[in-house]
């Protein structure tokens, strides 16, 4: 009986050790050139919090009412959104250029030039996508020095588009202007006001 117990214990140890040594060494695409241990796979977690203030426009104020340029202003983010949308919907390319912050305009125009997106492209695009459409403000987000206006451009049949778009404004010399500074910001990327999720987990291989 004692012998049987010993056999079982030894057998268990052998199986356990065998299982350990059979663990596959993970494949790593680059190796050290000095003697080193086998690779262990590990995880690093980074948690980042983004604080913002969320506003939802009332039914009576959500419609973006387009204006002529001489009545436009960039005194606050609401008026700046109206300016931007009015510039686009009236196919006024030079007005549209004036709705950007200096740095973001340079960045945007350089990028568009590299993709061959010239004035003619934008005018055709706006004519197709904006002219005659209802534009609705869905949310206003205050985030640090920025105000993000989330808007929706209706389909030709008047129904809301499936896509709500963010437009980031920041103040430059007293004017609220469109900024690309948050283009890589996770808050804009995940848009929790649309997803309804206040937490996201992203795993990188």
């Amino acid at each position, binding site marked *: 009986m004692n012998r049987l117990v010993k056999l079982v214990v030894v057998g268990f140890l052998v199986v356990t050790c065998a299982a350990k040594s059979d663990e596959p060494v993970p494949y790593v695409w680059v190796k050290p050139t000095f003697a080193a241990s086998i690779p262990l796979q590990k995880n690093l977690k980074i948690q980042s919090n983004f604080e913002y203030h*969320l506003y939802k426009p009332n039914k009576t104020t959500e419609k973006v009412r387009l204006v002529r340029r001489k009545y436009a202003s960039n005194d606050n983010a609401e008026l700046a959104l109206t300016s931007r949308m009015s510039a686009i919907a009236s196919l006024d390319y030079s007005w549209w250029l004036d709705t950007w912050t200096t740095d973001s305009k340079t960045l945007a125009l350089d990028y568009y030039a590299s993709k061959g997106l010239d004035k003619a492209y934008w005018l055709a695009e706006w004519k197709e996508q904006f002219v005659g459409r209802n534009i609705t403000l869905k949310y206003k987000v205050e985030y640090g020095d920025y105000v993000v206006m989330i808007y929706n451009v209706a389909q030709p049949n008047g129904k809301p588009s499936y896509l709500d778009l963010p437009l980031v404004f920041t103040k430059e010399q007293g004017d609220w202007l469109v900024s690309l500074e948050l283009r890589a910001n996770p808050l804009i990327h995940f848009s929790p006001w649309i997803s309804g999720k206040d937490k996201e987990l992203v795993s990188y291989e």
Partner: protein
Amino acid sequence: MSKHKSLITRATIVFLFISPVCLAQQSAGQYEDLGQKTFTLEQEFKYFHQKYDNAVIEHYYDEQVEASDGPDRELVRFLSSILFDDFDWWQSIWDQATRDDWAAKASLNKAERSYNFWKARFNKNSKVELLDFIVMREYVCIGFKISNESANYYFMPFVQEHGLWRLDEAFMSTELYQKLSLQVSKSDSADFNKSDSSAE
């Protein structure tokens, strides 16, 4: 008639006084305030960790050579360039984006300051022991210590550029690099008791 006139005047006065108030109220009531919110992003990065086994650098390079023989060999070349006081060679081990940044901010002397930082910490009497080899995404980070120095832990991130291993200074200012460096430097060697037969 005069009664009517007085009514119109009163109405005008009332309108003039009240309308700005109404407009202000309308502006304040444009939105439903949904309050202060917090969005939390949790990022999980997988990486591979190897502990070097008594890897003290014995041989340094005595001239600038270019080879893609491994990030730890490039670290040896990085240290060699300091040993031979070759600033051009030392700069060439950083990636293009780093060198562009140095050139764009020439007045800050970033390259010179970084070079002097290293020259103050490493010389021919130094003993360098490699400790950690980390592979995370496109980065390979090498942790090491310099013996004649106050036992500081150094963690250098390499990326491949045109087939050569180059240091990425911008990555060193990211939260990811800083947390990785801290986590790796505090890792327990006891977890690494097997040696990798595939290493040379």
